[in-house]
């Protein structure tokens, strides 16, 4: 399924997911040695009480530094940022992240669509958006917008997803550049910005 597309000049990789995505993240992220001149932003649906869990696990397991997201934090390459629960995460054109507590979108806050769309507007071609396992349709519209603005979109292979609905829906409506198994996901991220 994979198309030959070499990704260069990427500034930010946004990974969105819902049910079944945490295990994928915890499998992949610790294996990434370093980020080649881009930042990773993770937008996953979770309960507000779980807020620290993912951060803490990544800090323990991963070489890449996790930066806590506060309003207007600068987005710096080499770091991982995790969207806090109960806020939408937005990208500003001056390379900062901002937060928003407005209404839920797709029953979700943070909404993956909101982050994908806003990243597309701020970073255009320099966005790579990845959508993982999940059981609602959040993310699909955002992927379309990323693509419209010239970015690259990748979706977890539904066959390898714990919850295939979200990636299936995305494949149906957004024509992704890559469809990746869990194992391929790691090579894909490592290949970014490598000529």
């Amino acid at each position, binding site marked *: 399924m994979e198309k030959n597309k070499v990704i260069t000049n990427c500034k930010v990789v946004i990974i969105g997911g819902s049910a079944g995505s945490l295990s994928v993240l915890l499998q992949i992220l610790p294996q990434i040695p370093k980020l080649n001149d881009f930042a990773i932003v993770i937008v996953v649906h979770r309960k507000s009480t779980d807020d620290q869990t993912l951060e803490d696990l990544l800090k323990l397991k991963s070489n890449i530094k996790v930066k806590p*997201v506060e309003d*207007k934090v600068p987005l710096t390459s080499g770091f991982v940022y995790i969207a*806090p629960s109960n806020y939408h995460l937005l*990208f*500003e*054109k001056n390379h900062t992240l*901002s937060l928003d*507590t407005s209404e839920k979108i797709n029953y979700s806050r943070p909404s993956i669509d909101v982050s994908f769309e*806003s990243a597309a507007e701020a970073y255009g071609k320099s966005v790579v958006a990845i959508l993982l396992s999940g059981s609602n349709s959040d993310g699909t519209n955002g992927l379309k917008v990323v693509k419209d603005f010239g970015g690259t979109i990748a979706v977890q292979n539904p066959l390898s997803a714990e919850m295939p609905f979200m990636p299936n829906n995305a494949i149906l409506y957004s024509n992704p550049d890559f469809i990746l198994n869990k194992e391929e996901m790691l090579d894909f991220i490592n290949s970014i910005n490598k000529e």
Partner: protein
Amino acid sequence: MIKDIELETLINDVYEYYGFDFGSYSRASLKRRVERVIQLDGFLHFHEFLSKVRYDPEYYKRVVDEITVNVTEMFRDPAFYAVVRNEILPLLGTKPFIRLWHAGCSTGEEVYSMAIMLKEAGLLHKSLIYATDINATVLETAKKGIFPLRMMKEYSENYRTAGGKEDFSSYYIANYGIAKFDEELATKMVFSQHNLVSDNSFNEFDLILCRNVLIYFDNDLQKRVINLFDESLAVLGFLALGTKETLKYSIDSNKYKQLDKEKIWRKIK
């Protein structure tokens, strides 16, 4: 989606026609809010929306009301309210009179939460809560102290997580889907319209709460507002922000000391 240039045109026109300055609002969020109103009200073209805003002051008011985010809840972030209850109120309680300012209070859920905690600490009689917002419509709701009954289960859980020990339902009367809060709580509240972008300090306070408002402003405006709070805060008074907001980018950190993990700072000089 609207274009950047269209958003800037709207900002300029609103300033020119009505004197309200959205110029220092965070663009990413403002853009989404404007797109939401355009969609809600069924405009097919941006220019139709823009001319309605220009020439119809009533519609302009609606747009401002819809753009400003009014998502709130009682005892929002219960851990924060637990710190206020256990650490801040005992300190404020030593004063003969306590002045609080809730800036950006929206429909008032957090103002009533604070009044309940003051009452339980035996401090309500000597407290005064100034509750302000830019949006006159939400202030009308706040004054009434009427909130949707369906939310009470969640609020009651928040209340208990925040250390509340009473029967939460004793604070309101339930009727036809609404919960009307005890009028005694409101006797110590003063509601008025206040614009953080352009209005000045109007009193000196012991505790200022402004939660999840600064996130909608850019760095420059955040600085202005934090300075406004600084001018309005007594020495040894407290400033409380939203869980993901910070003073870090806005003010000399020697002037303020942060409490634990919560977003509460004490003015130390």
